[in-house]
């Protein structure tokens, strides 16, 4: 984990990409910090029973999320799996609306219908978090097909976890994307674990980016704890997809700092592994890097932290104050074209 093995075109892009301006690096740091504090706040709200269902956090993936989203244009489309709070934030959706969705309120991004795993926002072109492993891949492939059909120049990014590379939909989607030259970048977030099963225990080819070779698709692996490296690798893949209408498979490696979801204590990890995770924390690491570079000192980081914490607390307060969806809206979203005979019965209502 953590090694960087990039192949073309990511490597070429790395030498080409200019070193980001200090303000850009600070903006990345702030974005990563927002994701970190938001997820910590979500975990707390979950233990307070403010949030129901499943709740998967992006803790440890802040650099990956921030780097990937920095590589997209506003007009590009994003499909993700169920671990998508950070992506929603980085796509520019107000933290209030993201938190309100976790709280199941009508002010949430999906109006309280989706919850943690199913965030959707047309304006920022986040076309869904999806709860079924691999479900988003055929959809994203079809979205890329539609982009070409309409003659557009948008790119589709499709995020997934490492375990997803073993499901049939992964292979069917990569095959179609390569066969039809679709403008799509598949991104595997390799945190080493599918719930409690290691990549090595589930994948005959554990270097997941190599799977693309079966479809003659270009691919690369990048250190997911390095925000600039992720951005550069993703940007190269995205812009190539835009320019040449070619798919790409990008693998990012990063630690999952906590369990699979909020309720998972991760007992399958040894004490040594848990200790090592602290060392691997991408946020702390990036903070020190910025300090050493003279860009952001401890005082400035503390100030940023207070700012971000206030934003997250405000989001939680907003969510808590927001109304639940009215029960009268229960039947509003079953069909887009309402037709005769659609049932609108509550459990004890008679059929006639």
């Amino acid at each position, binding site marked *: 984990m953590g090694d960087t093995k990039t192949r073309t075109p990511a490597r070429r892009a790395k030498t080409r990409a200019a070193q980001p301006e200090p303000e850009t690096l600070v903006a990345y740091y702030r974005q990563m910090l927002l994701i970190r504090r938001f997820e910590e706040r979500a975990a707390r709200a979950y233990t307070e029973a403010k949030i129901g269902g499943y709740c998967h956090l992006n803790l440890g993936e802040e650099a990956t999320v921030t780097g990937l989203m920095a590589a997209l244009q506003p007009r590009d*489309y994003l*499909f993700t799996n169920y671990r998508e709070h950070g992506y929603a934030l980085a796509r520019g959706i107000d933290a209030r609306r993201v938190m309100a969705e976790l709280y199941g309120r009508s002010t*949430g991004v*999906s*109006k*309280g*219908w*989706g919850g943690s795993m*199913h965030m*959707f*926002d*047309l304006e920022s072109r986040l*076309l*869904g978090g*999806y709860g*079924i492993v691999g*479900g988003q*891949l*055929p*959809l*994203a*492939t*079809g*979205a*890329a*097909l*539609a*982009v070409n*059909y*309409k003659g557009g120049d948008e790119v589709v990014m499709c995020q997934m976890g490492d375990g997803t590379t073993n499901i*049939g*939909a992964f292979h*069917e*989607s990569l*095959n*179609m994307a390569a*066969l039809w030259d679709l403008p799509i970048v598949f991104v595997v977030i390799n945190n080493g674990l599918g719930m409690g099963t290691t990549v090595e225990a589930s994948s005959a080819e554990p270097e997941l980016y190599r799977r693309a070779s079966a479809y003659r698709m270009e691919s690369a692996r990048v250190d997911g704890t390095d925000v600039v490296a992720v951005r550069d690798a993703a940007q190269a893949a995205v812009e190539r997809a835009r320019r040449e209408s070619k798919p790409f498979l990008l693998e990012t490696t990063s630690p999952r700092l906590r369990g699979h979801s909020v309720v998972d204590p991760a007992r399958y990890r040894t004490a040594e592994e848990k200790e090592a995770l602290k060392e691997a924390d991408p946020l702390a690491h990036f903070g020190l890097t910025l300090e050493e570079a003279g860009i952001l000192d401890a005082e400035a980081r503390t100030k940023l932290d207070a700012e971000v914490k206030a934003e997250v607390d405000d989001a939680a307060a907003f969510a808590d104050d927001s109304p639940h969806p009215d029960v009268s809206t229960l039947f*509003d*979203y*079953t*069909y*887009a*074209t309402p*037709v*005769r*005979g*659609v*049932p609108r019965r509550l459990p004890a209502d*008679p*059929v*006639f």
Partner: protein
Amino acid sequence: MATMTYRQALRDTLRDEMLRDENVFVMGEEIGVFEGSYKITEGLLKEFGPKRVRDTPIAEEGFVGAAIGAAMLGLRPVVEIMTINFSLLALDQIVNHAAKIYGMFGGQCSVPMVIRTPGGGGQQLGATHSQNVELFYSFIPGLKVLAPSTPAEASSMLRAAIRDDDPVLFLENLALYNTRGEVPDDLEPAEIGRAAVTRPGTDVTIIAYSRMAHVAAEAADKLATDGISAEIVDLRSLRPLDRETVVESVRRTGCAVVAEDDWLTYGIGAEIAATIQEGAFDHLDAPVRRVAMAEVPLPYSKPLELAALPSAESLVTAVRDTVRATGR
């Protein structure tokens, strides 16, 4: 008005809709170069080109999901799944995605797509290729399931399905492709969710859909020679289900037999029977009967296959028993 086959009606309607709306395109296995396993897409590749007539790999989950994704961006894909048996490979995309996207995201994104697929036994295709699993899709809120039985309905209902903003499972039937019927010129799209009384009668109601609507008509002819006047309700839409038309008929006739091509236990007929007992309880003079496929994996052997499938004869027997049970 022209007389044509069910197959021709589907093909002409697809062509019309593709000419009318450039966002309509077709995709599926062998639909382009091969012109479709059942030739529904004959000539379309030549006329519209590979962008709008897309041959796919054998990957039902992948290409059905891709059609959903394309529909999310505003296109109107019409997907062909070679037979409904193969739709099981796409179950996750149909049930967990096509049917859920509108509701799960709070009504922000619709999925205007059609999945065309034939069911039907009786072709000696064996256990895995002869099933009628439309029930699986009829069970799912968010999907619409249409089952036309005539060329005119095939045309008007396919038109409606393509123009509808929701995912529609459009059930065809292998035994119907060569059946002929009149199709009016300038046929309007059908109203989705409406059953039809296709033959008026006074003594008993037969409820059927798809191929069984034809079996019911044949049975009704035979019953008429015995002096039994059977009314036929063709469901046409399995979801939403037009319960009112069914119940209104049974309230007049006082007894009912459901003719279904699927298996009896938990089948479409079970839902119809439950509907009738709730909506016409005081009007029933006999228990509701169901005529359905024998509950076995359908065998290849012709005599075994014939014995397992519901026929006009089996329906006549069940209707006679039912009318006799009324004691009229």
